[in-house]
């Protein structure tokens, strides 16, 4: 096989595939390897036999309709923010040509034992059952402040300073109740703990803006989701990489990592696989390929994939929703997330629903921690649970040429993943990631015509 590359990428998770795609488009010669025989690594969507093979290898799986591949169950439950950075990357790389998206039909928050729709604008706030009549007016005032805030126009600041006032001070200025703070901070700004209250307001302000703008984009919720599951995302970026010359080898374990000494420092030099030796000055890898070069963050995530044969009670039979259970509401330190998708997203056969429940573990009996979520789901056909440690690299890779991604965290969206992608790109290339639009289908056709 070809011996020398600019970059070797190990693992076909989303982070690795996005970087592989972008670097290939930029003209780098990329070799992309995965030890497993499917795309996606930790961010894959599994068919039924892969799923039961991974989570319940010894037990009999229940009678389920549909073919094996009619099931695409995400290992990491996340949604894309319609106006978020991953959407931006998809559009700029034109990977949208391979993947179709649908909206998630609703965004809900748990409060006082039941779930309600998260109001995303002033009109919805006035109709929401989450607040009493006076609180609704205060919420309306708060949302207007957020929407109208302009750094350059002091009159829109109402005497507040986003860079010195804490978020709690901003809430208190608008005299918002603690329950209202809960759903703004957790269901709109999507913080999973209450730490943000004591920090300056700007990051929370930015997150609320992202939420509001994402809702405004398509209407029903701020979230979008790819048909056939999240596993399509790494596949789409892998295809981008391949059409720009990237070489793909799945089902190829790494037999040996090669190093060379440069000025007394051991640097990455290449890998040995069943296909032979491949060399490159740089490797990008997920944490499983370099266990000695990553550390546990201390956070552990529990994820439960629940197969249902009904919609979530109290949601007017919506085909897909996100439910956030703010930590305060159930006496916890971290929120519990529920992501529900169905056959309209082509991830289960008709009549089934997938609810993936996740949270950061706080006790010695993590499955019990998910009980408040299970209560909301009603009866379950089957439940598969997995616990994962969250890893991050020990070094930034600049000295040994080994650039390692972070594990996918417990957050409900991809914003932290795209932060990691941009950070890795900067460390690898020394410049910030600037996305330039690829020619679209018609332009490409025209160019092909000229070349011929």
């Amino acid at each position: 096989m070809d011996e020398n590359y600019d970059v070797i990428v190990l693992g076909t998770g989303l982070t690795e595939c996005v970087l592989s795609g972008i670097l290939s488009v930029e003209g780098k010669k990329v070799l992309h390897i995965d030890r497993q025989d499917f795309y996606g690594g930790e961010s894959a969507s599994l068919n039924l036999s892969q799923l039961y093979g991974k989570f319940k290898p010894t037990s009999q799986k229940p009678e389920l309709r549909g073919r094996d591949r009619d099931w695409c169950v995400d290992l990491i439950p996340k949604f894309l923010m319609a106006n978020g950075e991953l959407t931006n990357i998809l559009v700029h790389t034109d990977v949208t040509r391979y993947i179709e998206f649908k909206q998630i039909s609703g965004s809900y928050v748990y409060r006082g034992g039941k779930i309600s729709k998260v109001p995303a604008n002033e009109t919805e706030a006035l109709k929401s059952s989450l607040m009493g009549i006076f609180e609704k007016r205060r919420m309306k005032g708060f949302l207007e402040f957020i929407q109208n805030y302009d750094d350059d126009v002091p009159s829109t600041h109402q005497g507040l300073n986003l860079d010195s006032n804490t978020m709690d001070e901003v809430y208190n200025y608008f005299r918002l109740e603690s329950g209202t703070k809960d759903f703004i901070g957790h269901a709109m700004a999507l913080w999973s703990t209450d730490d943000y209250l004591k920090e300056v307001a700007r990051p929370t302000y930015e997150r609320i803006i992202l939420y509001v703008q994402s809702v405004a984009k398509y209407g029903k919720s701020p979230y979008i989701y790819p048909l056939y599951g999240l596993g399509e995302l790494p596949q789409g970026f892998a295809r981008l990489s391949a059409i720009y010359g990237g070489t793909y080898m799945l089902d190829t374990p790494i037999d040996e990592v090669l190093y060379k000494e440069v000025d007394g420092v051991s640097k990455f030099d290449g890998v040995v696989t069943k296909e032979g030796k491949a060399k490159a000055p740089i490797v990008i890898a997920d944490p499983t390929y370099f266990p000695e070069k990553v550390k546990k963050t201390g956070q552990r995530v529990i994820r439960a994939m629940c197969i249902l044969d009904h919609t979530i009670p109290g949601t007017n039979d919506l085909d897909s929703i996100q439910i956030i259970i703010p930590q305060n509401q159930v006496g916890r330190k971290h929120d519990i997330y529920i992501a529900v998708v169905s056959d309209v997203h082509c991830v289960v056969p008709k009549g089934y629903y997938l609810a993936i429940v996740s949270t950061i573990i706080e006790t010695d009996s993590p499955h019990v921690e998910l009980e408040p979520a299970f209560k909301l789901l009603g009866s379950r056909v089957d439940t598969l649970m997995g616990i994962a440690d969250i890893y991050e690299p020990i070094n930034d890779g600049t000295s040994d040429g080994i650039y390692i991604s972070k594990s996918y965290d417990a957050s409900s969206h991809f914003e932290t993943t795209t932060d990691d992608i941009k950070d890795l790109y900067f460390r690898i290339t020394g410049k910030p990631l600037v996305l330039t639009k690829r020619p679209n289908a018609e332009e490409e056709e025209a160019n092909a015509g000229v070349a011929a």
Partner: protein
Amino acid sequence: MSFPNPATSVKLVLLGEAAVGKSSLVLRFVSNDFQENKEPTIGAAFLTQKCTIGERTIKYEIWDTAGQERFASLAPMYYRNAQAAIVVYDITKPASFIKARHWVKELHEQASKDITIALVGNKYDLVEDDNEEDGLRKVSVEEGKGLAEEEGLLFFETSAKTSYNVNDVFIGIGSKIPETNAGNGAAPADQTGGEGRIDLTSNSVAANRAGECAC
């Protein structure tokens, strides 16, 4: 005045061992061109070409493997909602014919069951002047036909170099694709729940892609 039918989109995937001429075949069909010693496929996401068959116009969205077949690393996405496939082998290379059997099997497992498949033995130009005994041809017409009949495939021998039979492959496939299948863009609505798909490049909800301008 005539009213041409709107073109119906058909996703067509190419399969076959490396260097059997998959890209050359498409290049010949799409731009009636052939390049000797063509580099492996780079930079083309997929090519499109319209094909008129009687009353119908079919717009092929042709997906090349982009080299992902080389180490058996084609993604499920590649086969997803493909309504047609061309499995290519080189009639001078027996190993490529064995590989073609493998791809046909793979299609039966991975693709939708009503996919239209054409088996194509390429590089006919190399054997045109063959003697009976020691020619370059290593896979006989009968072997090709046999496999095609066994598996219910269309069968052609082609030359991307001379363009022999190339258009016939695409016309043959087009006339075999059921009308109902090709009505709603590359993805049949009954499989993908048609409505509510969104176009990330615009700000509005597109009901489906059938309304797209086909020109």
